């Protein structure tokens, strides 16, 4: 590590805001994915002037810089793939302004997703994107990854809730794009920057829309004896034009793990369940819940339970949101993909995943956003076994390949990061990727900011690092 770089950073931020000892850095070499990459130093900026200063120092020393929120990302987006400075936004966590009347909030990027919703809950508003990691993940991370969550089925993902961004470009300028009022004239730059996985700029301020909480919510748990009945139910709900607020599927394998861990009352002998929220004005919710229950029964649901009160509802959702952690108790390692498919292809895809599970001999748990076709197959394996490692990647690739054959996409919400860059050519031609790279290079010309992410790089092709699981309890979208 270049000591002059460290000196510069310490001078800017104070020495307690700069970590560089190996034992400190080891905490920051991974995120929620299976990837590993160690930064040369970790810094904790507190102001936008700090961000400007860090970028200036990075440029002077020609050192890569990567922004990071809570590190809950699932594709290695916030890892320092080429080393360098990892800038953690946890100290830029102030809610700067809440405008109830106009349903807007201005936040620093390090504000935790759930904290914003809690801060405005008394006004009947919330920040709608709700990744399962929402108690830890930051809004800056949500913006970078265009995060989803169970309730984005009805409310839209992060990009649908972002109005204005202030950021520092890797070239050192502080810019503002978009506007708090709607329809900012010119190109939709926020539309480009949201979901650009931290490759275009380092956020300093985010203006988001706040959404009114629904007057009434009903949570249904539909229990099925076969996977096919479960997936056919989702197809039918979608085809009938019903958009629940959320429609999540948990297969039997995951259910049993979740139940042992959370005790939410999930039936452990079933093939799968659907966890469905309907919301809106009271009068509509009643009839919509009944309609959804009818469809479930028509597809041979063994039972359709309606949560009696908010306590029961919260418990069911706790089970869902902690499912990845629960599965983590069954195996030393899992590998999760988040391919997307057209909803009509759910039954065929789940059957294919079962075949792939059998073919490779890995248990695969499925717990996912069924309502928008966003799969999360969790492949359980032992990373200590080199051979298993190779085979798990082959199995995951086979699932993604199938998603794409079905007309789907590589990632629905976890991002490409450094995990799925090698898969990009399955979906995009070289000229498609070149145009995207051109955009990246226009804003990030020296590749100083979050290098070697999203776009396949011939050098790194095929290599993948797997690390042991985090402790049980980590939650995932």
């Amino acid at each position, binding site marked *: 590590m270049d000591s002059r770089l460290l000196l510069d950073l310490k001078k800017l931020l104070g020495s307690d805001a700069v970590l560089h000892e190996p034992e400190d850095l080891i905490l920051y070499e991974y995120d929620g994915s299976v990837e590993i990459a160690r930064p040369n130093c970790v810094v904790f900026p507190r102001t936008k002037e700090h961000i400007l200063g860090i970028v200036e120092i990075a440029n002077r020393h020609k050192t890569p810089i990567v922004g990071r929120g809570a590190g809950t990302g699932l594709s290695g987006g916030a890892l320092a793939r080429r080393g360098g400075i990892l800038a953690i936004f946890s100290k830029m966590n102030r809610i700067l302004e809440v405008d109830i009347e106009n349903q807007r909030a201005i936040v620093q990027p390090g504000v935790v997703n759930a904290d914003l919703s809690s801060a405005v809950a008394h006004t009947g508003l919330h920040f709608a994107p709700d990744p399962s990691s929402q108690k830890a993940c930051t809004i800056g991370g949500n913006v970078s990854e265009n995060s989803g969550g169970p309730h984005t089925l009805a409310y839209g993902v992060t990009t*649908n809730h972002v109005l204005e961004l202030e950021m520092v470009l890797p070239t050192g300028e502080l810019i503002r794009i978009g506007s708090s009022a709607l329809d900012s004239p*010119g190109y939709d730059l926020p539309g480009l920057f949201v979901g650009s996985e931290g490759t275009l700029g380092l956020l300093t301020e985010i203006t988001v829309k706040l959404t009114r909480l629904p007057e009434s919510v009903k949570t249904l748990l539909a229990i099925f004896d076969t996977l096919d009945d479960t997936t056919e139910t989702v197809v039918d709900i979608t085809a009938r034009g019903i958009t629940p607020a959320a429609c999540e599927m948990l297969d039997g394998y995951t259910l049993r793990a979740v139940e042992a861990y959370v005790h939410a009352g999930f039936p452990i002998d079933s093939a799968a369940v659907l966890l469905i929220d309907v919301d809106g004005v009271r009068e509509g919710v009643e009839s919509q819940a009944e309609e959804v229950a009818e469809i479930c029964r028509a597809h041979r649901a063994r039972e359709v339970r309606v949560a009696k009160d908010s306590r029961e509802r919260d418990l069911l959702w706790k089970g869902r949101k902690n499912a990845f952690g629960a599965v983590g108790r069954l195996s030393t390692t899992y590998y999760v993909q988040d391919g997307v498919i057209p*909803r009509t292809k759910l039954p065929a895809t789940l059957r294919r995943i079962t075949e792939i599970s059998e073919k490779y001999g890995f248990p695969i748990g499925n717990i996912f956003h069924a309502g928008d076709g*966003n799969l999360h197959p969790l492949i359980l394996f032992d990373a200590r076994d080199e051979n298993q490692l190779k085979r798990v990647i082959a199995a995951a690739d086979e699932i993604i390949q199938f998603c794409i054959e079905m007309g789907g996409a590589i990632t629905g919400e976890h991002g490409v990061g450094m995990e799925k860059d090698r898969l990009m050519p399955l979906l995009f031609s070289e000229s498609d990727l070149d145009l995207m790279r051109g955009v990246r290079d*226009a*804003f990030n010309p020296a590749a100083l900011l979050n290098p070697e992410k999203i776009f396949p790089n011939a050098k790194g092709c095929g290599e993948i690092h797997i690390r042991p699981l985090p402790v049980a309890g980590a939650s995932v979208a």
Partner: protein
Amino acid sequence: MTTASKAAPARLHDVVGAEHVSSDPAELSAYAVDGKLPASAVRPGSNEQVVEIVKYAAAEKLALIPSGARTKLNIGSPPLRYDIALDMTRLDRILAYDPGDLTLSVEAGVPLRKVAEALAEHRQFLPLAVPYFDRATVGGTIASGVDTPLRQFYGTARDYVLGMEFVVGEGVQSKSGGNVVKNVTGYDLHKLMIGALGTLGVITRVNFKTFPMLVSSRGFVATFENLDRAIDMRNRVAQSPLTPMTFDLLSPGAAYLFGGPAAERLMKSSMPLNVVSPSRWTLTIGYFGKEAVLARYEAELRHMAAESAAENVTVLGDRILAAAFAYKREFIPIALESSPATTIVKISVLPSRMKESLAVAAKAANTNQIPWAAMARSLGVIFFALLPVERSQASHRQVVATTNQILAAGANLGANTTIPWCPSEWKSALKIWGPERSDLAQMQKVKKVFDPLGIFSPGRFIGGI
């Protein structure tokens, strides 16, 4: 005209066939953009032909302006150069429609009407209820970035366009997004194409999320003696649990427009005129649902209307609502046809500043003695139509003075103020893109990546892009 652009037809014939190239000035006048005619118009019949045309234009540095039904080509600055009109209307196929998945993929030149018919067979629709709905194409609608009354509930195109294909640069076929409802694979480049007025390339294919048709809907119309009371009700509804499908405020002048000769010419069915008043502000709210929901809305809206001292309240049933909705949708075409020099200022503000913005604009228009009418979306988007009685030097001066006053006030109110529609010859004197923006440099970077040669609709966009 450059030599290259004179020679263009022969080369274009090779690409698309002579019958799909026009170079006759009489035919070309249909492609005029702010009075400027291209040297030729070409109508490709395939993606490959689009690519060939762009490659040719790039090689010869000819300027292209893509177009569909040409209903919104007058939005934006006059083009700096215009050699080839790239008419996309032959690319009008529905390429994929999966009603069960509620996804749709179409060629850019397909008319909205045709899409609506295909979706209606499965009781679905696209919430692109934009001005000129009966003629407009998907590509033109997306490129022009116009909004719709339905944005109140469904958002704008950026909320339901899932992916796109486009031809950019020197004839490179490219794409972003996909055809699934949730996707973060790669940059969302297609969002940049929305409202870009064809300055980044030509859109060839658009993928959408579709929506189920409404079982039953109603309209609630309340008239108010003044703006204050109308806004008071707007605020009550906005803070309630109700989630209307449309929610717009109409100024007194809007009733004149809807009852005028232009509306009669343009509209198929007549406006239920008794519900809007030429001397009153009118709040119009569309909502949908099952009977119990409709009843709840009506009861609550009636209560709120009474609290806000509404004068007249009317509830419109399904059929009459459709007619009334069409008037709101076509507010801009009707306004454009209602004066020889209609100038429409679009003012986007935070909802809390809508009242003041409307008051300021009305005062500016009244001071300068220009008749006006306004439609304001509850979300904070105001279309303020100045309707001079004649197109003259005097009315030009009045409009310039009025818009400058609105712009100056808008700057203090944090508004985005633009002038999407006005007479072409007035554009140079009007700040049609509003005040200078600090993010212009970033937009210029984007333009350079997509269109390094500057051949796509040069000069039509913000800041001379």
